[in-house]
């Protein structure tokens, strides 16, 4: 068999050239294009040398899933089909990845929740599947609107979890994500999340890499577990699992196995830093007031900072790009000068604020808000209002907007 490095410079059946990923992402010319987030997912997949994509309709990822079907029809994806449900899709993704394929899927909201059992299974089986999560409401009564609550459920699955702010993040991170996920010392699935609709259904200028360049194919022979062998764990554990034996050795083995998954998350840290240029981005970290956010809350925070500057209030920003691995040291360092840390979020529970509180010393500095949910937008003015209220400054209530 040829290793994937030896294929660099050769062409695939569509005439794309397998290109060193670092060169493709950092040195190749980029073409500005005006696309929706869903179209960007399609364009990234066109360049991803993806073997298998498995789809199931659920808003707001349905459009992306359908567009990737077009890619399959054009011959850019090895195989493409619709599963019977999200649970089936994620199980089928596992099967494809067990077989040594580079696998991609997309889901959202209740679909993520329905498929949840599979995610720790993916991690435990060390399957480097990439799953796009276009976040939306998950609770009853039904909501298809933007809401990031489902990310909270993914954080302890053993998957890598990244949170894209923009369509540009999305394009780059889909391609770079495979590079991190497929490292043999990592070899874990990646949940690449974005805020549904805000990113998927709005158009933005995205700088695309050349369409005639694509990633080197996945090399399953570098996997830390056998590709597929019914006599060996992880596959054999389905019918002869050590977890079914009730003795100390079985428990110790399973404990060691779990530790290994989280060790792999830790190992992903250096690769993630290399590929997405750090786990966080920062601005004005010497400011007394910091906004720490992920996803499109970062954009709203950035606008709030501009509004505050107009009033002479200086405020800094931390954009959390990777949630797993968690940028513990980076956030501590970036917020060490802050007297107040604000965490705006698009969910009701404030899971990011909880993570930040568990990370920084003197966590009374952390103000868990403002938060909106259920599809509400987050006007930058409410971030400004929250900050000014904490600072004891007079503000105008925004509660009457629309009255």
């Amino acid at each position, binding site marked *: 068999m040829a290793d994937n490095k030896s294929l660099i410079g050769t062409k695939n059946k569509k005439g794309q050239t397998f290109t060193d990923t670092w060169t493709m992402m950092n040195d190749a010319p980029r073409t500005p294009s005006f696309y929706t987030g869903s179209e960007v997912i399609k364009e990234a997949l066109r360049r991803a040398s993806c073997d298998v994509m498995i789809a199931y309709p659920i808003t707001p990822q349905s459009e992306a899933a359908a567009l990737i079907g077009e890619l399959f029809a054009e011959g850019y994806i090895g195989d493409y089909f619709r599963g019977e449900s999200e649970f089936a899709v994620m199980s089928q993704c596992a099967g494809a990845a067990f077989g040594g394929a580079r696998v991609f899927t997309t889901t959202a909201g209740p679909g993520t929740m329905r498929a949840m059992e599979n995610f720790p299974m993916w991690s435990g089986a060390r399957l480097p599947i990439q799953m796009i999560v276009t976040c939306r409401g998950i609770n009853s009564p039904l909501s298809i609107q933007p809401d990031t609550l489902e990310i909270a459920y993914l954080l302890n699955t053993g998957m890598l979890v990244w949170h894209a702010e923009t369509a540009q993040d999305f394009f780059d991170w889909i391609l770079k994500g495979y590079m991190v996920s497929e490292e*043999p010392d990592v070899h874990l699935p990646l949940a690449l999340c974005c805020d549904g609709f805000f990113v998927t259904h709005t158009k933005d200028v995205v700088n695309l890499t050349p369409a005639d360049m694509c990633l080197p194919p996945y090399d399953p022979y570098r996997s*830390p577990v056998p590709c597929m062998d019914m*006599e060996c764990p992880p596959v054999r554990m389905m019918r*002869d699992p050590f977890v079914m*034996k009730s003795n100390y050795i079985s428990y110790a083995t399973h404990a*060691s196995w779990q*530790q*290994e998954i989280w*060790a792999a998350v830790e*190992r992903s840290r250096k690769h993630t830093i290399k590929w997405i240029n750090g786990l966080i981005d920062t601005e004005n970290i010497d400011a007394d007031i910091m906004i720490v956010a992920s996803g499109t809350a970062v954009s709203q925070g950035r606008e709030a900072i501009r509004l505050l500057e107009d009033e002479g209030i200086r405020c800094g920003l931390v954009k959390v790009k990777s949630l797993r691995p968690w940028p513990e040291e980076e956030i501590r360092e970036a917020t060490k000068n802050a007297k107040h840390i604000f965490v705006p979020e698009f969910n009701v529970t404030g899971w990011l604020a909880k993570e930040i509180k568990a990370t920084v010393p003197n966590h009374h500095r952390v103000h868990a808000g403002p938060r909106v949910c259920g599809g509400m937008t987050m006007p930058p003015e409410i971030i400004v209002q929250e900050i000014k209220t904490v600072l004891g400054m007079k503000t105008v209530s925004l509660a009457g907007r629309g009255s």
Partner: protein
Amino acid sequence: MSQYRVLPGPEHFLPPAAASMGIRLPNPGEAHINGVIVSEEKAYEEAAKQFLMAKVPTLFPGPLVLWAWNEKAAKKATAIRHLYNTLKECVQPGQKPMLIPMPDYRPKYPKINPEVEINPNHPNLTIWHNKIDCCMFIGVHCHQANLSLKIIRGGTSCYTIAMCAQAGHEDAMLSFRDASVEKIMTLADWVRKLKGTVQPRLTSAKSGASN
């Protein structure tokens, strides 16, 4: 840098993964000893010393080198046999080099035969039974190697070495990365070079057994 050091156990009822304690893998051209990044040259010397000090220095070849599934695997297997023969030539009376395969990763029930194989789910049984005090994993899939290395560190005092074909293993006390035929042969050369210069632990109480 992490203060944690990857040392022979028995470390704990459930020892942590070294990666979760801040131990980082070496970059290409490097190795680690006890979790500290060192040059490959230093690691060759230390690995050879540990082999020559041990009462039962043992090689654990795994599935990736036990079958000739490609040309490289066959050549590695030959090199491993050469390393084993070199160990046998270089040790002193009372030392007992062993070559025990890890043929697959299935848990062995009702009971493993520890004289003929090692298993990643309960590697301590083979270590204890044979009183192995220094071992090297080679050709074992990384996930399974880490599984084994943690369990060995948790319950035995065995010194663990990993000759890894990928990125290395923090859970070993000493780890090479990007293992190749050349690296295995270089390690054999170091064993030969240090022959007679290292005092074996023959009278030491230190052994693979923890109880």
